[in-house]
């Protein structure tokens, strides 16, 4: 027993109401950026194939664990996979990789993971969904669900369900101070990553040949085919992009939201919380996904701070959990195809 007691440190900074709102909005944008990254992944697959991709969460999980392996230097071996980064088991010839400073290594790891998961997306499309063109939509949706179950469980078997620590240059305590407002670097980087992805995405859509073909396919599949566009290639590209976005979202989700802890369940189900964002913006609108993602993130944080106390008084705690869904319902009742979605023309 050691009787040294650290004296109390009470440094409670006083924020004005305005400053507090700004502070919370900044936090909300960080959360929303990740929602947006996930939501764009949903949107792009939906645009190309009119299918909600339930396997997105599993792609995100796969990306996260690849980033972990690269950052911690761990070759996964199922149950023998050690949990901590201390037990790196990279072979001799890869040691140079672990000597790279942590920040560039994180960026490179994320890129490598994005490429691998992107290729995995193509593989899945080619081997499975490719065969489902023209089949009932819900059979296809269920297939993505079966894939989710298989891939997520395979990740669990390969890396073991033990929790892991992701070494990253973005620990939650690292922050930027602007006056009384402090901004976590993890949030800044999440927003930046989202911004870069969105810009690259729009540029791709607008200027590349595939992008234009993709827009054409999304607009009218038959007409596009008649014009000589290989729609199946387009589907594969959509899945590749979804895979890339999922891996990037996973890499930023863990340091920012889970304090560097990787456990399967929260990462696997993180994609679900981005559903309201995708729907709010309109399922076929990438711009809508960004607006929806950021909006839902901010709304969730602000409602937790200002609306939760009201409902806690009525003995209905955790109001912020359903606030995004209520928002989504209200928007949909006014605009049935989301804020920026395209209304479907109904023929009799």
């Amino acid at each position, binding site marked *: 027993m*050691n009787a040294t007691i650290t004296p109390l440190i009470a440094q409670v*900074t006083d924020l004005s109401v305005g400053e507090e709102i700004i502070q919370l909005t900044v936090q909300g944008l960080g959360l929303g950026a990740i929602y947006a990254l996930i939501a764009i992944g949903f949107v792009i697959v939906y645009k190309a194939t009119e299918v909600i991709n339930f396997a997105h969460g599993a792609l995100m999980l796969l990306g996260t664990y690849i980033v972990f392996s690269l950052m911690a230097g761990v070759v996964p071996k199922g149950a023998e996979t050690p949990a901590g980064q201390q037990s790196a088991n990279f072979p001799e010839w890869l040691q140079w990789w672990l000597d790279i400073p942590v920040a560039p290594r994180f960026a490179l790891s994320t890129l490598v993971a994005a490429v691998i998961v992107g290729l995995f997306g193509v593989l899945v499309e080619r081997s499975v969904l490719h065969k489902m063109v023209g089949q009932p939509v819900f059979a296809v949706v269920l297939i993505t669900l079966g894939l989710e179950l298989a891939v997520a469980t395979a990740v669990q078997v390969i890396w073991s369900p*033990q929790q892991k620590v992701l070494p*990253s240059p973005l620990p939650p305590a690292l922050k930027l101070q602007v006056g009384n407002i402090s901004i976590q670097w993890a949030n800044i980087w999440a927003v930046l990553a989202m911004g870069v992805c969105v810009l690259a995405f729009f540029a791709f859509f607008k200027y590349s040949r595939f992008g234009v073909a993709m827009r054409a396919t999304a607009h009218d599949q038959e007409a596009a085919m008649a014009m000589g566009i290989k729609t199946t290639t387009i589907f594969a590209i959509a899945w590749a992009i979804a895979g890339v976005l999922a891996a990037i979202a996973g890499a930023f989700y863990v340091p920012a*939201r*889970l304090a560097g802890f990787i*456990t399967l369940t929260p990462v696997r189900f993180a994609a679900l919380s981005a559903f309201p964002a995708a729907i709010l913006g309109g399922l076929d609108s990438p711009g809508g996904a960004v607006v929806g993602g950021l909006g839902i993130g901010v709304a969730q944080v602000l409602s937790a701070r200002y609306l*939760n106390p009201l409902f806690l008084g009525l003995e209905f705690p*955790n109001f912020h959990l359903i606030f995004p869904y209520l928002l989504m319902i209200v928007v949909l009742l006014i605009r049935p195809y989301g804020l920026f979605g395209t209304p479907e023309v109904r023929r009799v």
Partner: protein
Amino acid sequence: MRSRRILAILAVLAMVVAACNGADPTTTTSEPPPPTTTQPPGPTTTGMMDELVYDVGFDPDTGTIKLGALAALTGPIPGIGASLLNGHRVYWESVNADGGVAGMYPVEVVVRDNAYNPETNVVVYNEIKDEVLAFSSAIGTPTTASIYEDAAGENILVAAGSLASQWALTDNVLLNLGANTYFAQFANAPYWAMNVADPAIITDESVVGIIYQGDDYGQDCKNGYDFGQANTGFNHQYEATYAATDTEFSAQIGGAQAAGVSVLFICALPTALATMLGTAAALEYSPTVFGSSPSYNPVLPSALGGGDEAAGLAVFASFPYYGLGAGPEFEDDTPGMAELRADLEAHRDAIGVTDEMINAFYYFGYTQAQTFHILLEAAVANGDISRAGLLAAINLVQDVDLGYGGAAGGYGATPLERIPTNEDNIGVPVSVTENVFGLMDITGFFEAPYMADWDPAG
């Protein structure tokens, strides 16, 4: 070493049994299935019972006792789940290495994964309940809640992998002799912070608040906190809950900051605690934090520091952070801990224990098996290892000192007596290289005087 200690336990039990003779040990149970009597196999030279009553989960040919363990190997808390299960397995492995219970009845543990999900728990529980005598480990408060009524109906004893004090209110769910309750952790802490700590951590100027997980686990912490508040009169100003699936806590932390909270109690799980502290640090907000025992995990500083343990420990120290229910330290020079270390070395390779699994949850799983072992010894000494016999044997376990430095504990008939101990100790985070469980004890075991007034049934 083990056999010597077990003989000591048996000596205690023998006296207890003698004292209880005459009382019908099965009066608490209804309609026990017709028990069978057998000659136990193997040598009976120990002078034990010649005849043993049994029904389910005992194989008279091999003398094997079959127990069930419901573990959380997947789902939200695989880290806690694997540590707990492996501590449990190592203990039984070492018992079997000595020949088994009473030196002649080896124990077989049937493990199922409940993924910390109540519904999965019901399915896996039903799958093995017909073949096991009892459940020597069942992780989780909400999960155990889903099965204990059915278990009560079939006289099945369940050792809870949960510290919720509500289990004291049941006849068939057993709390661990090696730990206290969430209630006791939160009820004791204010006493220490106001009256023992020097300088006092909670003073008349302190504003106190609590953030707790919105379920049974959090509720037990909150009840303890309220009890402590009622008895010490600290200035409670803020409370907030969060859902177990939440990953964003700026609202709860920001709310505490806005309320001017300078001492914050947190009842959470490791990932949530790390994220909350990270958020608080980012908001330049550093209240003194008291966290429940499942909130802290020794890999937490490493996670919070982005892989750098020292950086993460600095974040913890900047609050500062006090871990409630710290329990004994791995390095303690106590007979109990010496045995735990010896068993770990002897059996870790066979069971597959990695360094990351050795933590307070490992200790919990180990002592849970130890508690159950003592109970089984009592039942064998009593000549009845039927399900009803095992339940009846609970009251025979009294004044057992597990040898970890805390007070002796045991069970009785009333809810209050079903709580092994109300003592607590508090620790501060240190590097796992010097302290394997990660929390350095700074208080020793203590109990607030007002804890004597608490009755879980009241």
